[in-house]
């Protein structure tokens, strides 16, 4: 049985059955929805992370061009 975890969802790391970190697909999956709250939030975190990376990339690019 899964133990009670009051940690924030963003801190959760999804793992495959062999213990490896699970690489969340950006487009999501039925499997993630079936995982419930952790699946949904992990997927949204992934999207957010990707957005952040894109923004960062744009910022970095701008920074480099200013140099």
């Amino acid at each position, binding site marked *: *049985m899964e133990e009670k*975890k009051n940690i924030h969802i963003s801190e959760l790391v999804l793992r495959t059955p062999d213990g490896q970190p699970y690489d969340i697909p950006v487009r999501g999956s039925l499997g993630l929805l079936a995982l419930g709250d952790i699946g949904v939030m992990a997927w949204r975190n992934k999207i957010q992370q990707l957005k952040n990376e894109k923004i960062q990339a744009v910022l970095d690019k701008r920074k480099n061009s200013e140099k």
Partner: protein
Amino acid sequence: MNPQPKKQKVILLGWDAADWKIINPLMDQGLMPNLKKLVEGGSIGKLKTLDPAFSPMIWTSMATGKRPYKHGVLGFQEVRPNRDGIQPIMGTSRKVKAIWNILGDKGYKTHVVGWWPSHPAEPINGICISDMYQKSNMEAFPKDWKMSDACVYPREMAAHFKQLRVHPRELNEQHLLPFVPELGKINQKRGGNIYGLAQTLSHAASLHSAFTNILRTQEWDFAALYLDAIDHFCHGFMKYHPPHRPNISKADYDLYHRVVTGAYQFHDMMLRRIMDFVDEHTTILLVSDHGFQPDHLRPKILPNEPASPALEHSPYGIIAAQGPGIKKDSLLYGASVLDLTPTILNIFGLPTGLDMDGKILNNIFEKPVDIPPIETWENTEGFHRTDEQVGEDEMNIMLKQLEDLGYIEKTDSANVEKSIRRVERELDYNLACSYIDGRQLFEAIEVLEGLQEKYPNDRRFLYKLATCYQSVNDLKKCRTSVDALRAMDIYNSGTLDVLEGSLLLGEKKPNEAMAMFKRAEENVDPNTSKIYFMLARCHFMVSRFENALRLLEKEKQINPDEPMVYQLMAKCYTKQQEYAQAAEHALEAIALDFQNPVSHFVLGFNLFHLGRYEEATTALENVLKLAPDYNDARKLLMTIYQTHLNKPDQAIALRKAFEQKIEGTIYIVSGMPRSGTSMMMQMLHKGGLDVFTDRKREADENNSKGYFEHELVKSLPRNKSWLSDANQKAVKIIANLLPHLPGRFKYKIIFMERSVPELLQSQTRMLQRLGKRTGDEETYPLSLADSFQKSIDRALQWMTHNPNVEYIRINYPDVIENPFEQALHINAFLGNILKPELMATAVDGQLYREKSR
């Protein structure tokens, strides 16, 4: 309140419309591995639904153990409290406690997610998330996707749960391709229903997300989740489910034939996640409210009637239970949706309420625990209502969804009054159907007669009324209703022929009934009309049991889940004295419908004949639990205890228990007409006993002191409601009607006797005085005399064998000759409550005119 010792925990999962007929092949193909694990590790069975099979009514029955006419949720919609419009049915319509109220009151931490109906979220000892929490529409995303705080209790947690919802516009081909592999071929503009699919999927994902969050982060003893997705997927896509049917376009079939399978697989995946939270103390119960026809029983077209999509439902849902003390790999028979709450209470070591209609499913337990029931849970704390109103946005989304599913008619916003009338009409109709389902036929008739008066052109009411009249043996009114239906030429003639055939059977005209059914056979669909069952009833009535059995086999091939087919087969075998076969078929009928007392009686009767007395007593005890007035069962049970099991104490206990339920004593004067019954009523009246009479039939030459009758007595075969008014009074009831008296009263019967020749002579003279000649008065009417004697014998036999009857036989000439002596005798029988000297003054010897020659 201090909680009980916390050992047991329960997860209750509701999958609306889940059906073993779809699940079993999927499990066999390895497509539902998690449910398969649950099934193999626990007990499973079918769950008999209620009629009407409307989800809000049934899920509330599941959560309360009570029928809809008790719990108050009667449909999909209701009139708003200030009557300014209509709204989806609310949790506030529930007027009795749900399982979560009872458990919360006992200190258990309880959480409920998505139960239908449960909005606004009610205060409980845990978290309640209402059935409006997940509702969405396509336009409002992402910023405008509102959620009222009333969707969550405690309200301060609303913001937390709001972010756990999934919107249909978040979904993409990754989510939808498992349902529709050739998604790209769908032209949405040409009626493709992909948005509906995404919406249903997102709603399930939202509720599952909130539920898993609760299980993961909160303390819990009881947690319930309700999902409507399977029902919605099936209403939209079952028509495309294999095998392909000729009336479905091949192109559409190719596109959508995987949707239903995908829906079940997704639920299996969600189940896998929930199983992560199950420990050795947890019982998991997976249930559905009804099934969904997946095969040849799928209706090809739906009638243009409110809530007609419910015709696609099948009458059996599912139950799978696994946990500590639950039998493994075991089959459960005879379960009903009403049994869920009593069973969960038992798991927690709590008593069931006697006012609940369900029973504890003892067969799922390795060692059933007997906990004496209490009167009711309604008098205890733990039910806290909220007066919050529903937000317009959520309400409109929900109404739109119900409209899209076809469960409700489109709301006429321009004519609010019309919409209100329509909703009230449907709620009343559902109430009547619920009464019928609970065998409360007179209550049903009252509601239906009101509806019929208001809406004479709505054939549904007249049709139901006709079937009710027939069930209560009011064949005259049934005939009138059938004739009126015939006059409505819009009615399907085949369906009406079936109804009329059934009426003819009630009128004991089996040959005419058979002709009617044969005519109907040409116009009705054998898959839905039960026509072979009807024909079998005709053969049964004329004792052609082999023919009946042949037809019932045919019906069984079409309708393997119809309990009445097995019941009639059991009756046929009983008549053929094939007791083992009969018992086996009665058991099948009970497995499909535990609530029918007749099947239990047939089982008990046959077990008795097989010498299996202990088992027979169990069956007969069940009859009396379901129908306390079933005197044949009581008599047989007492005989078994007394004579075959050598348990006279049990027989006495049975009689005492029965007497405790007695509502009162009615004093009856009975006998054949002209046997001195009016004189005896007069004696009792003079002696000081109240008499039950309407004084409509006035004294005349034949009865100079009056008849002391009441019109209502004649209606006894179909109407017993007036008996309460006759409590502690004297009533005149002719001998032929005695067997129609129900078991809930004690009867002290003064049975008047007079020789049959004198009776016949007196009746003849009376008819002559009334100017109604009777043919040849000089010839003794042998057949009539024989018929009189048979009626008297039948009445005496009935009185002798009925435990709630005490009777005394009084000879009419003896009263004339010795009125005071007889008055003393009668008064002693009645418990010395009268004044015999006054009783004797009522006797007038002059009236004894027809002494035997």
